[in-house]
């Protein structure tokens, strides 16, 4: 029934939102579409898995490990790849192409390192009790996902809206040159954004890995496609958009699987994407204007 579907959609939507959040942060602040975000998502999942299986970390610690490692990757990518392209003032499609190359590299590297099969978190580690209230059923895992996602997203929103740091980031999103003239440490904040965005992506990776109990090298790709759909839907560069867009997509997918059939599931994301772009390209919250230099 509807309430149960909504509950199912909630946890899925939260993970989509979390992934899209990192994606949209990088677009909003750096002006780059980072198509290696899916690979980072995957790296987070593998990092957590290794932490649990090889280092016997408890689950919460492996989440932190994923966060740190994914964040580190984000930082290095920014330092080695995105920064030189910024210095060169490359038109923004160029960094996007570089991130495509990175994604290919990472995806296949992980296949070489870990093999192409589906790996799983060991059963003991994954909580699987179910909770019941108000006539709906939700697993502890799903609840944890929802709570964690909301915590992270709320934290991010608070930072963006209420702190000096957030104001600085929003200024950069409007116009990096103007922000620099105001004395904002733009380069430093670029590093920070890339790192935090990657960290969020890594956490999303672990959560999906737990949710669907599968870790495999190409797991980032379908996620990337959905992330693109989410940020177009919600408005590129806007955090509320990523949030609402993610939830909306989760909802739409669950509904379509329940009432139409699972084969069309991937098409839902892209059908929506296409419609939005044709009818209202800026999405729910995006601005139509291109950003100034």
């Amino acid at each position, binding site marked *: 029934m509807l309430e149960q579907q909504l509950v199912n959609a909630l946890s899925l939507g939260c993970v989509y939102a979390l992934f899209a959040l990192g994606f949209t942060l990088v677009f909003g602040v750096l002006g780059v579409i980072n198509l290696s975000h899916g690979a980072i998502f995957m790296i987070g999942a593998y990092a957590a898995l290794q932490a649990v299986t090889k280092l016997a970390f408890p689950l919460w610690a492996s989440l932190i490990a994923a966060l740190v490692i994914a964040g580190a990757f984000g930082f290095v990518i920014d330092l080695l790849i995105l920064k*030189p392209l910024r210095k060169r003032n490359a038109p923004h499609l160029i960094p*996007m192409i*570089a991130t495509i190359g990175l994604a290919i590299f990472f995806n296949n590297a992980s296949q070489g390192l870990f093999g192409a099969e589906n790996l799983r978190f060991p059963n003991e580690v994954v909580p699987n009790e179910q909770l019941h209230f108000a006539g709906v059923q939700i697993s502890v895992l799903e609840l944890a996902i929802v709570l964690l996602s909301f915590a992270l997203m709320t934290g991010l929103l608070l930072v963006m809206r209420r702190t000096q740091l957030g104001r600085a980031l929003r200024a950069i999103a409007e116009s990096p040159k103007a922000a620099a003239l105001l004395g904002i440490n733009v380069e430093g904040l670029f590093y920070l954004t890339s790192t935090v965005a990657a960290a969020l992506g890594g956490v999303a990776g672990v959560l999906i890995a737990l949710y669907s109990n599968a870790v495999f090298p190409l797991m980032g*790709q379908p996620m990337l*496609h959905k992330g693109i*759909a989410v940020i177009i839907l919600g408005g590129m560069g806007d955090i509320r958009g990523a949030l609402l867009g993610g939830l909306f997509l989760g909802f739409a997918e669950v509904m379509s699987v329940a009432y139409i059939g699972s084969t069309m599931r991937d098409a839902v994301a892209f059908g929506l994407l296409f419609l939005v*772009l044709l009818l209202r390209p800026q999405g729910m919250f995006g601005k139509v204007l291109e950003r100034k230099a």
Partner: protein
Amino acid sequence: MEWFDNFWAVYSNLVLTIGINALLALSIWLTLSCGLLAMANAAFMGIGAYTASLLTMNVGAPFPVALAGGVIAPTLVALAIGGPTLRLSGVYLAMATLGFGEVVRVLILNAESFTGGALGLNGIPQQTQWWHVVLALVVVLLLLWRLRRSRIGRAFEAIKEDGVAASLMGIGVMAHKMLAFALGAAIAGLAGALNAHLTFFIGPSEFGFDRGVDILTMAILGGTSGLTGPVLGALIVTLLPELLRGFKDFRTMLNGAILVLIVLFLPKGLWDPLRFRQWFARAPRKPAPATVGER
């Protein structure tokens, strides 16, 4: 001649694939030359491939008719979605066309009765001869070369640099973008039709994001300042897996690494006439007279 027969027996597929990939790289070069990063050419290739194959397999159409169908179908689709899509610029256009590509892939996947779904179409008559590919490539190269040397080519370049300024030069920007987009779709469709009748099997996964990235890599790697670049890029990207056979699983990794390195260090690709001119200019030379329409 014997070594040639041996060579051909082993490598004919590879050579023809290079030609077909060159067509694909040129199709995306065309859209790039107008400033459009349209990632839909893989999908157009798929539409062309399926249309042509269904024509030969289900209707028994002669090869030229199937090829024509493979060209016309994606062109019509491009014209249909071009209107609203091409109003988008830059990253939005890239996203929209990526999305469109995925929609097409999923549609193919789901229209099982027509397209064989995930299993694809098997047993397509292998009708592509070497001369088909050569002819197609020559015709397309000639067409694109002539376009570049005309007001249409100049209009593309102006639009690519600054669409607003271009419109104030009297250039109908939307009409030109449509032309680039639809013609690119036609060329990609032709490549798809030829490819289907070469490999005798096609499946939906061949025309998705990965193929789109491959095509883009070929164009970017080879260089986008002229027609030589995409062809060179196609040559390298097709041969590279063969040359790297020894590296086994690391081939695709290398693909990705190459893409990153090219973007970082050779932003205009391998074939960059400006860079060559700089190299040669280091040797003392008479200054060239002001030539008109050099490129």
